[in-house]
């Protein structure tokens, strides 16, 4: 009857103490990661502020680590939001097809509106946002249709995930098609829109990725009490006084902004939004007032460390960080999926 797997104990730490540790891990990752890299840097020269050592450190490493922190945080928070919304810990920007939709949107803007994209920094993120929103609407709509007219039941995870993964695959195919159709010589740079990485992130990407993410995070954080209730299903949330329509709409918008504002620069990086919230729940419990900031910090630290590993292990070559997160996240996804099936049976 009682399946011990379904009852993860919160660790002995109190929530503030757990949050303190998470903040420490974040700070440690943020401070340490810029000091690793494929080229050796003369630190005395770097901190004097001039010369090539300073350039490598300040113009390449620091912005890249900052982008990794931001991307990890945004994707993790988006994962938490999608999981609350769909009542399923398997939901994340990648498995729901949002990352694929955002990438397609970004590619469409780059290829179809090259001059506008170069002129206004907001063009590519906006197109990514529209692509992400379109795919999430499609996947959500399909899953709701699969559920039928019943109101109390949760959305079918099978319908959600099949739709999400199919949409992702389909969008990948469109991205490939677009590149081959427009300009074959540029197809080397298309890898980023299939398997994301942080190698192209520079200082100019930071602000347009940061502000929308920050606003979306704040919106979600303020929705925390409603998200807590939504995890119990739509029926219970509504009966306790949650304005369901508004909550669902804002959560979808915010999670799509979070996903697309970073994916517009990095391409799809999968499974962060799956692994990080799972870990954060173990330490902080289920309350979104703690879970959202905790996941943001933990996700940022995780991606910064993963990216540091990805760019140093095979130096001078670089592994796209999305390959690394997929290597870790794929088996993890299967583990969660297996557990869900197991719970169904018992």
């Amino acid at each position: 009857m009682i399946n011990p797997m379904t009852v993860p104990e919160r660790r002995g730490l109190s929530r503030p103490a757990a949050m303190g540790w998470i903040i420490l891990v974040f700070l440690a990752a943020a401070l340490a990661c810029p000091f690793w890299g494929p080229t050796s840097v003369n630190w005395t020269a770097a901190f004097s502020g001039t010369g090539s050592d300073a350039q490598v450190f300040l113009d390449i490493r620091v912005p890249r680590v900052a982008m990794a922190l931001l991307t990890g945080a945004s994707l993790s928070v988006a994962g938490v939001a999608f999981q609350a919304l769909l009542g399923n810990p398997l939901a994340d920007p990648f498995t729901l097809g949002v990352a694929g939709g955002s990438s397609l949107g970004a590619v469409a803007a780059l290829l179809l509106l090259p001059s506008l994209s170069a002129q206004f920094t907001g063009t590519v993120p906006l197109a990514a946002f529209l692509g992400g929103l379109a795919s999430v609407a499609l996947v959500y709509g399909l899953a709701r249709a699969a559920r039928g007219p019943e109101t109390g039941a949760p959305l079918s995870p099978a319908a959600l995930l099949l739709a999400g993964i199919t949409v992702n695959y389909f969008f990948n195919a469109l991205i490939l098609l677009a590149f081959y159709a427009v300009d074959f010589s540029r197809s080397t740079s298309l890898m980023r829109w299939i398997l994301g990485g942080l190698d192209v992130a520079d200082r100019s990407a930071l602000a347009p990725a940061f502000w929308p993410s920050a606003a979306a995070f704040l919106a979600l954080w303020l929705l925390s009490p409603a998200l807590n209730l939504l995890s119990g299903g739509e029926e219970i949330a509504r009966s306790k006084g949650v304005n369901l329509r508004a909550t669902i709409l804002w959560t979808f918008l915010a999670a799509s902004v979070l996903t697309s504002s970073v994916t517009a620069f990095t391409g799809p990086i999968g499974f962060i939004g799956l692994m990080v919230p799972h870990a954060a729940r173990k330490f902080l419990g289920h309350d979104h007032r703690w879970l959202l900031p905790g996941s943001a910090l933990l996700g940022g630290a995780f991606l910064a460390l993963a990216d540091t590993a990805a760019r140093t292990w095979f130096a001078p070559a670089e592994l796209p960080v999305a390959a690394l997160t997929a290597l870790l996240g794929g088996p993890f996804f299967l583990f969660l999926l297996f557990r869900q099936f197991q719970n169904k049976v018992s």
Partner: protein
Amino acid sequence: MSLSFEPGDFTAFLGPNGAGKSTLLKLFAGLLSPTAGRILLEGKDLSEVSPKERARFLAYVPQGLHYAFPLTARDCVAQGRYAHLDWFGRLSRTDRTLCDQALELCDAASLADRWLEELSGGERQRVLLASALAQDPRVLLLDEPTLSLDPGHQDQFFRVVRHLHRKRGLTVLMATHELNLAATYADRVVLLSEGKIQADDEPDSVLTAGRIHRTFGVRLRRVRMGKGRFQLIPAAFPGDKP
């Protein structure tokens, strides 16, 4: 159909499966919107009442629930306070006391720190009832609340409900297909079938052998229990000649 309820009523909606009992209750709880007609709450159209205002007036106890993530009984009850809290959902000392009292009333105080999913069906229904009470409602809507409970737990559940109804003057609307539950606890029975009201009066005059046979297709007879209450038992053993 047209129905109205007075404060302090204990009404049971009875009817065969698919008669529309649960649908009616979900309409009252605001979980479904009427496609035609209106529901008035103290003269105000329910669709114009804000979700939080509605939750402070009407509390709904579902048949069961599925939580995607682990939740303790205490947190589940605290969720009942949602409609009373500030924008960031902070629980005051008063809120916590109210939750503890609700758990106490529902005989669930000892379950507070356990996970919902490790509770038995009866324990979980008591926690859900406590969560509904934490809403501090005036109307309690019970949707087949004891469907999966054994007789002991069922009895315990309704003892709590009756206590709340009598001592706190809560209005109770309950959907069920168990005739004896209605006969035991309700002051008024609305008999539904095929989406229509077949009868609406006190249990004694609604639950006649003839009407039960017409509605449910089963022959039952009454056994008087005292205090004007009665129970229904089969008129004959299955297989006996009528």
